[in-house]
């Protein structure tokens, strides 16, 4: 572990672990405890999904946190950030959908909740660090902190951590960045942790296993409209533009001869969903983008154009790009090769080899 505070023994270094009740954060706590840190487990309740029968996912998850913490013999607590989550993450999430974009609540949650509200809370408990089960690494050099990809390239989560600042990263530990996911399960099984066989959570945390369309319709009125080709030929009806994302094939309900149909665009003004035939439909391809709300992890904003690699969505391979800083702080990003389905609202995240440089929100996609 790279965290050292001069003159402090590990057992005097207090680390607050954000525990979700899943296997990753359970093993995070286990590793830190084994290394000799003073570890405290804290569960964050950010969303209430209590149903008619009184069942609440958060209560179940917290019970798992309690079981694991007792196995590790560390204190545990729960904190409530429902209000903060609603104000900072969920409101943004809805606004973006209203604007016809595809938001990334996990990026916002890391920036505003896990590494802000939660970090502040941990600091109020006298913590030296907070740790989470993210697959990423931090490297501390010359009073700077760098964010590095996790060793397990398949699980690397730096994409979601691109909005963190130096101040935030200074207090962060990611023990899982140095190991691979299968090893995490092994450690959990070896230690017989209560969460060793628990299924990994998927999707957006507050939606969980529920139907996305149904969930969104509870909060935003759906405006059904027409599906049209780029030539204006009506191909059917859509249920509301917010339910679709660029490059999507499923759920269009257009049959017939030829190649399958894909979402190739949205026209918010006329409430038309643009569709086209073929995975490689030219309308899905772009050569560049404009991103706003940039965060540079080093704390230094580049002024000259530079080359690096980028991801336009999670779990994508890196693509060669040229980043051109603009005077207002936003950037233009030019792709070495045309890219398919680059989606406004998602993050563009920049890398120099293993180092995550930062990122921003894709605002406009540039074609030609």
């Amino acid at each position, binding site marked *: 572990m790279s965290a050292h505070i001069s003159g402090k023994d590990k057992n005097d270094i207090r680390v607050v672990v954000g525990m979700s009740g899943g296997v990753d954060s359970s093993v995070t706590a286990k590793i830190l405890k084994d290394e000799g840190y003073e570890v405290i487990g804290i569960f964050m*309740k950010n969303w209430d999904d209590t149903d008619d029968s009184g069942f609440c996912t958060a209560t179940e998850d917290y019970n798992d946190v309690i079981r694991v913490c007792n196995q590790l013999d560390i204190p545990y607590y729960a904190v409530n950030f429902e209000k903060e989550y609603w104000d900072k993450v969920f409101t943004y999430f809805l606004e973006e959908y209203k604007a016809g974009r595809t938001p990334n609540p996990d990026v916002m949650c890391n920036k505003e909740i896990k590494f802000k509200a939660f970090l502040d809370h941990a600091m109020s408990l006298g913590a030296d660090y907070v740790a989470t089960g993210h697959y990423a690494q931090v490297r501390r050099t010359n009073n700077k902190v760098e964010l590095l990809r996790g060793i397990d390239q398949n699980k690397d989560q730096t994409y979601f951590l691109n909005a963190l600042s130096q101040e935030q990263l200074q207090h962060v530990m990611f023990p899982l960045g140095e190991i691979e996911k299968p090893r995490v399960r092994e450690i959990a099984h070896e230690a017989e942790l209560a969460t060793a066989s628990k299924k990994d959570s998927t999707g957006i945390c507050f939606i969980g296993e529920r139907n996305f369309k149904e969930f969104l319709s509870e909060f935003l009125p759906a405006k059904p409209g027409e599906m049209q080709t780029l030539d204006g030929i009506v191909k059917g009806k859509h249920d509301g533009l917010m339910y679709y994302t660029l490059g999507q094939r499923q759920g269009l309900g257009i049959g017939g001869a030829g190649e399958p149909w894909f979402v190739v665009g949205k026209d918010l003004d006329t409430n038309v969903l643009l569709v086209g035939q073929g995975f490689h439909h030219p309308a899905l391809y772009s050569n560049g983008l404009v991103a706003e709300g940039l965060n540079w992890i080093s704390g230094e904003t580049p002024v000259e154009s530079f080359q690096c690699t980028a991801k336009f969505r999670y779990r994508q391979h890196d693509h060669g790009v040229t980043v051109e800083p603009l005077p207002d702080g936003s950037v233009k990003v030019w792709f070495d090769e045309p890219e398919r389905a680059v989606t406004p609202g998602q993050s563009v995240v920049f890398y120099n080899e293993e180092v995550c440089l930062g990122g921003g929100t894709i605002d406009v996609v540039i074609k030609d």
Partner: protein
Amino acid sequence: MESIYLDHAATSPVHPEVLKAMQPYNETFFGNPSSIHRFGRDARRGLDQSREYIAQIINASFEEIIFTSGGTEADNLAVIGSANANKHNGKHVITTKIEHHGVLHAFQYLEKQGFRVTYLDVNEQGVVSLDQLHSVICDETILVSIMFGNNEVGTIQPIQEIGNLLSEHQAIFHTDAVQAVGMEPIDVKVQGIDLLAASGHKLNGPNGIGFLYAKKGVKLSPLLFGGEQERKRRAGTENVPAIVGMKKALELTVKEREQRKEQYNHFKKRMLDIFNEAHIPYHLNGSENEGLAHILNVSFPGLNIESILMNLDLEGVAVSSGSACTAGSINPSHVLMAMYDDESLSHSAVRFSFGYGNDHEQVDKAAYLVIKVMKRLMKLK
């Protein structure tokens, strides 16, 4: 790190003498008190002696004591059992806004069953108004449930005046005395109480045991069905070792009542003096001298209760926010909300509750640790 336990109103350590009294009933007199053999008779003797003693300390009679699994069951049996058994006389019931959830949620259940419930207000000290009670009670009223001493702020209600007011009315008078029994003198006849709930574990007795006093003639529908124990009002084999333990715990508390009260009042004063000396801004909830002696409730407005409790725990001081809270629950105390209608006061309250094993050094040390935590949190703000 030494741990200081100041959460006796949540639960308390079992007194060594209680353990000693219970031991033969686990090892030797383990029989079922309903059995016809010697083992049964031995157990029955302990059960009857306990029942006799417990009845006597509240001036009730032997057959008026029903043993239950704890305070919550006793409260549920009192509220739901008496409402159901008497609904032919009316469907209006009255309680207060500051009851323990064992009472409050039972009334919410009654509400769903079609009863009309009036929740009495309290003043800023947490005391109900006899005038309001007088004005809401009507011919339809069949039950009035008002707690004896509050578990969060320690306020004691004018039980005898309420008993007097209800003496000529059909309504049954129930009081939740879980925090008060042993600590405060209780005389169900003088105070006009029809039903009274209590538990063992707040007074250094074992967990999982309690009793309901039910005045002869008060009709109760049982909640549990099975054997004919407790005069058919509470089925299930009696937990004899725990009952014997509860009796012993009550005996010790009653014997030492005045010394304990004096000691706890001194602890309270000492803590508040230390807060004052350190110029820590706080607000005392309830009365310093007139409430239950073992409960001190203080708000630290502007500070986050979750941070306070966690910090104190990490410093080794065990306290609570009043009523036990669930995973990440942010609900402000319903008791303090009823007293002040102020979220800031209601969401920053710490309850210190004293009991067996606490001494002056612990109380001083805890008070200084509170100051340490408060100063740190105020600096961070």
